[in-house]
C-alpha cells in the first residue's frame, strides 16, 4: 500500500504550511507540533514506500492530476518513483524530521516561532515535490518554491541587515541559475513537445533532439543545478546564507536544497550522457569547486562558514562524480554528506545555542569537557567527512574517487586527491580548534544542550557511523550502488590505502599545527604567502567582484535606463514634442490678425485650391 500513498507527504506538508501559517501567531507551539507531526508521518510513509518499493518490481508509478491543459499541451502533477527519488525522499524526510525536532528546543522563545515551522513545512513540501515529480515544469515549480523556503528561512531574522541581504543574495543568485534552467527546460519542450521526464528520455534516446539543442539545454539545466548547488561562479550565496538560524543551515544548506542541484543532474543523467561536452564541463566545474572551496574552508574563522565552504566543496565532489556519470556514487555521497553535514551544523548550532550565538572558532576551545555529547557527535561527523576509515564518509568519498580514477584517469585523480586532503585538513582544524586546546575564560559557564537537541545529534552520529553498511551486501540487499544503478560496488585496495594515508597525514598535520600549537608552519605561510592568505581570507574577492558588477554595472545601467526614460523618452520625446506643438501654436496664432479682409481673401484662396485640387484629381 505504500507506493500508492506517495503523493501524501507533499500534500500533508503543504496543508501543514497553510494551517500553521494561518495560526502561527496565535498558537506557536501547536504549529510546531503540527509541522513535526506531518514530517514524522512523511517519514513513516517513506518507510512503507521503501519496503513496498524493495519488494516490488515497479520502476515508476504514474499518478496524474491536470495542472494546466491548453489543447494538446498538458502539464500534469505526476509522480516518478524510482530508486533515486525514493532515496532522496528518505534523506529529506529524515533530516527534516530531526532538524525540526531539534528546532523546537533551539528556536524556543523566538517571536516568530510558529512562522519558523510553517516555512519548514513549506520547504519540506516543496523539496519532496522536487524529488518526486515526473514533469520538468512542475519540477521547476517546486524548485522555485524550495528557493522561496530558503529565502524565507535565511531571512528569518529579517531585522538583521545581514540576514535580509543574505536572503536576497541567495534568492537572486539561485534565480540566475533558474533562469537558465527554465530556458533549458523550454528548449527541450520546444523540440520534444513534452515535459514528462521519462518521455523526454525516450525521445532523446531515439535521437529526437538535435545535438545542438541537447548540448545547450543540458548546459542550461546544469547552470540551474549550479545555482542551487552553489557551484563555482554561483557559490557566493551559500556562506552568506549562514545568517539564517543554524538548524536551517543543517536542513537546507547541507542536506536538502543544495543537494537538489545534484539530484537534478542525476535525474537528467540520460540527457547529460548524450552531451559529452557538458559532462566535461560538469567535471571541470565540480573539480574546481571541490578544491577552490576547500582552500577557503581552511582559513575561515566562522564555524558555520567553514562548514558552508566544506559543503560547497563536497557538492563539487558530487558534481565531479556526476560528470563521470557516476550517479550512484554521487548520490551515495550526497546522502552520507547530507547526514554528516547536518550533524555538524546541528552540533555547531548546539555550540552557538550555549554560547549566545558565538560563531568565531578563535573564541572557542577545549569545549569537549563542557559539552561532551555535542563534542563527540561533532567529532564523529567531522571524522566521517574527513574520510577516516571505517566511517561512512570514507566509503562514499572513496567510491567517487574510484569512479574518477576509472573514467578520468590519474590526471583528474591527483587534483581530486589534493581536494580530499584539503577536506580532511579543514575538518580536523575545525574540530581541534573548537573542542581541544585550552578552555577560554568566557566559556566557563557553558553546559550541554537540552535533550531535544542532543537526541537528533546522537541519531545522526549513529547514522554517520553505520551508513557505510548500506554499501555492503546484506542478504537480499545488494548494496546501495546496486540499488541506484544496478551494478555492484567494488573496491580498489590501492586507492583505499592511498587515500587513507592522505587522511591520516592531514590528521597528523592538523594535530601538529592546532594541538601542539607549532605555529611555525602557519607563521611561515602567513608571512611568506601573505598575499595568498589574504586572497583566500577575502574569498578570492569574488563577492566584491559581484558586488561591483551589480552596483557599478547593472544598477548603473538600470539608473541609466531610468534616466534615459525620463530625460529622453519622456522629456524630449513627450514633453518636447508637446512643447513644439505649443511653440507652433504661438507662431501660427499670428495668422489670426483679426482683419476681416485677410480672412475673406484666404477663404477664397482656400476655396479655389480645393476646387482646383478636385478638378485636377
Amino acid at each position, binding site marked *: 500500500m505504500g507506493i500508492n500513498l506517495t503523493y501524501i507527504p507533499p500534500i500533508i506538508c503543504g496543508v501543514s504550511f497553510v494551517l500553521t501559517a494561518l495560526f502561527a501567531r496565535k498558537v506557536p507551539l501547536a504549529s510546531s507540533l503540527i509541522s513535526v507531526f506531518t514530517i514524522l508521518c512523511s517519514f513513516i510513509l517513506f518507510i512503507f514506500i521503501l519496503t513496498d518499493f524493495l519488494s516490488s518490481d515497479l520502476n515508476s508509478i504514474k499518478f496524474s492530476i491536470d495542472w494546466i491543459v491548453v489543447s494538446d499541451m498538458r502539464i500534469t502533477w505526476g509522480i516518478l518513483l524510482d530508486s533515486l527519488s525514493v532515496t532522496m525522499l528518505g534523506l529529506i524526510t529524515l533530516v527534516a524530521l530531526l532538524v525540526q525536532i531539534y528546532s523546537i528546543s533551539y528556536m524556543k522563545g523566538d517571536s516568530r516561532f510558529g512562522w519558523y515551522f510553517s516555512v519548514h513545512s513549506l520547504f519540506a513540501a516543496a523539496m519532496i515535490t522536487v524529488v518526486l515529480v515526473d514533469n520538468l515544469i512542475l519540477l521547476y515549480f517546486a524548485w522555485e518554491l524550495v528557493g522561496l523556503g530558503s529565502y524565507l528561512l535565511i531571512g528569518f531574522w529579517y531585522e538583521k541587515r545581514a540576514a535580509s541581504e543574505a536572503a536576497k543574495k541567495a534568492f537572486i543568485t539561485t534565480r540566475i541559475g533558474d533562469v537558465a534552467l527554465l530556458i533549458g527546460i523550454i528548449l527541450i519542450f520546444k523540440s520534444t513537445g513534452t515535459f514528462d521526464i521519462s518521455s523526454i528520455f525516450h525521445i532523446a534516446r531515439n535521437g529526437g533532439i538535435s545535438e545542438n539543442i541537447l548540448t545547450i539545454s543540458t548546459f542550461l539545466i546544469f547552470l540551474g543545478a549550479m545555482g542551487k548547488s552553489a557551484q563555482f561562479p554561483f557559490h557566493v550565496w551559500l556562506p552568506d546564507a549562514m545568517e539564517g538560524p543554524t538548524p536551517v543551515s543543517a536542513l537546507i544548506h547541507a542536506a536538502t536544497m543544495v543537494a537538489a542541484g545534484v539530484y537534478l543532474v542525476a535525474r537528467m543523467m540520460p540527457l547529460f550522457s548524450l552531451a559529452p561536452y557538458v559532462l566535461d564541463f560538469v567535471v571541470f566545474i565540480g573539480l574546481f569547486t571541490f578544491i577552490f572551496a576547500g582552500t577557503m574552508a581552511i582559513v575561515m574563522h566562522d564555524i558555520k562558514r567553514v562548514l558552508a565552504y566544506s559543503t560547497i566543496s563536497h557538492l563539487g565532489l558530487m558534481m565531479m562524480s556526476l560528470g563521470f556519470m557516476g550517479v550512484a556514487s554521487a548520490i551515495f555521497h550526497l546522502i552520507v554528506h547530507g547526514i554528516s553535514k547536518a550533524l555538524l551544523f546541528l552540533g555547531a548550532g548546539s555550540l552557538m545555542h550555549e554560547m549566545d550565538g558565538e560563531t568565531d572558532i578563535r573564541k572557542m576551545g577545549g569545549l569537549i569537557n563542557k559539552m561532551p555529547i555535542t563534542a563527540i557527535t561533532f567529532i564523529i561527523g567531522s571524522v566521517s567527512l574527513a574520510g577516516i576509515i571505517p566511517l561512512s564518509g570514507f566509503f562514499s568519498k572513496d567510491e567517487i574517487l574510484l569512479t574518477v580514477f576509472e573514467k578520468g584517469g590519474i590526471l583528474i585523480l591527483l587534483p581530486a586527491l589534493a581536494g580530499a586532503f584539503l577536506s580532511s585538513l579543514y575538518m580536523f582544524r575545525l574540530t581541534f580548534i573548537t573542542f581541544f586546546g585550552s578552555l577560554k575564560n568566557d566559556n566557563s559557564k557553558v553546559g550541554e544542550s537540552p535533550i531535544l537537541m542532543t537526541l537528533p545529534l546522537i541519531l545522526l552520529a549513529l547514522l554517520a557511523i553505520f551508513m557505510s553498511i548500506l554499501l555492503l551486501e546484506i542478504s537480499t540487499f545488494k548494496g546501495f550502488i546496486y540499488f541506484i544503478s544496478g551494478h555492484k560496488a567494488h573496491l580498489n585496495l590501492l586507492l583505499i590505502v592511498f587515500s587513507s594515508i592522505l587522511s591520516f597525514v592531514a590528521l597528523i598535520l592538523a594535530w601538529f599545527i592546532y594541538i601542539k600549537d607549532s605555529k611555525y608552519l602557519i607563521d611561515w605561510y602567513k608571512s611568506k604567502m601573505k598575499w595568498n592568505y589574504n586572497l583566500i581570507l577575502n574569498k578570492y574577492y569574488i563577492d566584491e567582484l559581484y558586488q561591483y558588477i551589480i552596483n557599478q554595472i547593472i544598477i548603473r545601467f538600470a539608473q541609466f535606463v531610468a534616466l534615459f526614460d525620463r530625460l529622453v523618452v519622456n522629456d524630449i520625446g513627450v514633453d518636447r514634442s508637446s512643447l513644439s506643438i505649443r511653440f507652433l501654436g504661438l507662431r501660427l496664432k499670428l495668422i489670426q490678425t483679426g482683419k476681416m*479682409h485677410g480672412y475673406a*481673401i484666404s477663404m*477664397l*484662396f482656400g*476655396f*479655389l485650391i480645393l*476646387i*482646383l485640387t478636385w*478638378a485636377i484629381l
Partner: protein
Amino acid sequence: MISLIIFYIISALVLIGSAGVIFSRNIVYASFSLLLALLGTAGIFVLLLAEFLAIVQILIYGGAVVTVILFALMLTKIDDFRSLSNINYWPISAFLTLLALIVLIIGIYQTKIDTQNLGLVKFSKFSNDLFEYWGIPFEIASLVLLVALIGAIVILKDRGNDS
C-alpha cells in the same frame, strides 16, 4: 427672342447696379446702386416666371432691406467715407475673384444643361408644399426671425452704466 433681349437689358442693369455697389465712392450712391441691382433681380424673377418671388423680392429687398441700410447710413457718420472706400491690396482680390469667376464659368460650361423649356411653378402647388411639406422648417424660420428681432434689440439696448 424678345425675352432674351429683355434678359440682357435687365442683366446689364443688375450688373451695373452691382458694380456700383463696389466701385462707388459715395456710400449713398452705393446703396442706391444696390437698390437697382435688387430690383433687377426681381425683373429676372419675372422673366423666369416666378412672379410671387419677384414681388417678395421687391417688397423685402427693395423696400425693407434698402431702407434699413439707409437708416444705418443715417445713424452713422459717413464723413470719412473716402478713406473707407477701397483698400490697397485690391489687385490680389481682383485676381482671386477673376480666377474664381473663371473656375465657376468653366464649371458651368462643363455641367451645361441644354434647355429652353421654361415653365411655370403653380402658385397653389407652391403654397401647398410650403405649408404642408415644409411647414416645420417654415415655422422654425419664423422662430429664427423672432430670435433675431430680440437679439437685435438686446444688442442695441444700452445696459445701464456699461459704456
